[in-house]
């Protein structure tokens, strides 16, 4: 296939983006909400600490931002690499 090298670069860019997003995904849920909660327990939010907020609401908001960011970025990458649906 003539387009192969281009496709490989596109795929590498996708993997890079997914990796970054999943690091943030893990940090917001497993990190701040659970395992790293003691580290940020000094930050007070509405009668409790930031970790509790991440566990009940913050992580969900981060997930939302991540998915929309990924969709926006990938749809742009599709065009840059010429692999978008015409």
């Amino acid at each position, binding site marked *: *296939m003539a387009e*192969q090298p281009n*496709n490989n670069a*596109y*795929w590498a860019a*996708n993997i890079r983006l*997914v990796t970054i*997003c*999943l690091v943030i*995904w893990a940090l917001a*849920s*497993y990190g701040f*909400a*659970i*395992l790293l*909660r003691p580290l940020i327990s000094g930050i007070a*939010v*509405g*009668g*409790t*600490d930031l970790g*509790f*907020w991440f*566990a*009940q*609401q913050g*992580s*969900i*908001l981060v*997930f*939302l931002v*991540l*998915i*929309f960011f*990924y*969709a926006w970025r*990938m*749809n742009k990458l*599709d065009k840059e690499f*010429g*692999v*978008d*649906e*015409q």
Partner: protein
Amino acid sequence: MDQTTLNFIVVGASFALYFGIAIWARAGSTSEFYAAGRGVNPVVNGMATAADWMSAASFISMAGLIAFVGYQNSTFLMGWTGGYVLMAMLLAPYLRKFGKYTVPEFVGDRFYSNSARVVAVISLIIMSVTYVIGQMTGAGVAFSRFLEVDSTVGLLIASGVVFVYAVLGGMKGITYTQVAQYCVLIVAYTIPAIFISLQLTGNPIPGLGLFSNMAEGTAGAGTPLLVTLDGLLTDLGFNEYTTGNSPWLMALFTLSLMIGTAGLPHVIIRFFTVPRVADARWSAGWALVFIALLYLTAPAVGAMARLNIMTTMWPNGVEGEPVAEADLPDWFRTWSATGLLAVDDKNGDGLIQYYRETGPGMADLAAERGWEGNELVTFNQDILVLANPEIAQLPGWVIALIAAGGIAAALSTAAGLLLAISSSISHDLIKSVINPNISERGELLAARISMAGAIVLATYLGLNPPGFAAQTVALAFGLAAASLFPTLMMGIFSKRMNSAGATAGMLAGLISTCLYLFTYLGWFFIPGTNMLENTAANYILGIPPTHFGPIGALLNFGVAYFVSRATAEPPQHIQDLVESVRIPRGAGGALNK
């Protein structure tokens, strides 16, 4: 007009709406029956996905799960939403590009093997059937409580309604009824929450009210709601609401729910209905927006309901006397009739003491004040959401809305599951394995007959629920996490993964998960046949059976890797297929009739 009549009118109106949509959105071809002709707008699909995903468990049970445990059960909030990040980035766009109708179809084609396809069909049917039982019984309970009909009659009505729009409209009919059901359930969930948040904190947005100060005129005015709640709970021996223990188990359980969510076929197939790959990505985001509207409210509903219960039981504070049995509010009486709520005046003083007997220092306090045990003996957590409007003394139409909302949540999920089951039978077994020459019309008929058969089976199982119904939800998530998710992911992300590796990996995940569950919960969940007591001391590395999903997934990945490296690489046309799945170009757009 009495409450039951009002409930009938509101629930009846919602059914009329679903029927109207069913007639308007009839399926004329297999592409419409399986994938709504791939012409669904990504926002609309997001809404349908939210209804598809949010089951009776999300609508009825989740706030209660959080209310009675607090922080520790945030795992459900994170687990049931975080899976969408995995789905949006690791599965949905590529499976949409693949452009077929079912999840086993991808497994079978990508791994060029009918045995892989059949293993996928088996996993899909086990997890979807176990899931659908809960929806049918949930709808039956909602009917019997709100419409005062026998729960058997209720269940038959529910399956009759699903029958009409699912058999007639397939995915197309289900999609647009799910949109209507989403609107019903989100309004029903939000309205009581807004009123309760206003009463307690003066903030009309429940999600913000959770972190606000108590309103003027309430006990504890001026202090944060969560501080007030923590104080009341610890005074009565309960665990603090905002703290938890065993963070590693919390993380493992969250991971289990996330991977399980991403691997559930009835949700994945929703992304086959949008016209383009780019839409599949957007649509996952929209799905989470609509899910978040409920999931950001749920923790507020949980905490506020818990606080309302505490102040109902202890109107004069913990230092004063508790509520007298004669003064219990009306909703206590109506719900006692269902058996989901019960009080027992053990010390015969006419007052109801609600506290945790095993809490620190409670034995001494009880002896000092003449308590002879906790007297709120039963409080089923499912009551919380259903009784919410009554607890907050809201008008009758809000109660009727809750009835319609609970039924909508159960029906929308049931329909999605039934479609996943019937399409895997008619498309993956009949069309791909048994009779590849079947005509388009023949397959559409087969799809409708499979759907009808699946509904009859689900109704039968709902009427005669196997004793293990509650535990099987753990099985459904465990199987999705251990069998389908890793296999789908490797099919996309590893060009080297071959048929032998994927099949061996899937079987390893499937069998290890079943064995681990059966060891502690009994063979096929039959009580008394478990080989080890279901207690923490017996767990391997301290992992409870409900948390096994990620371990099963790891086994699946590991076995698949080693088997695939020891066997020949997949043929060139399969490697080209993987290449094409990875890029959006050529996805093929919406289908015409």
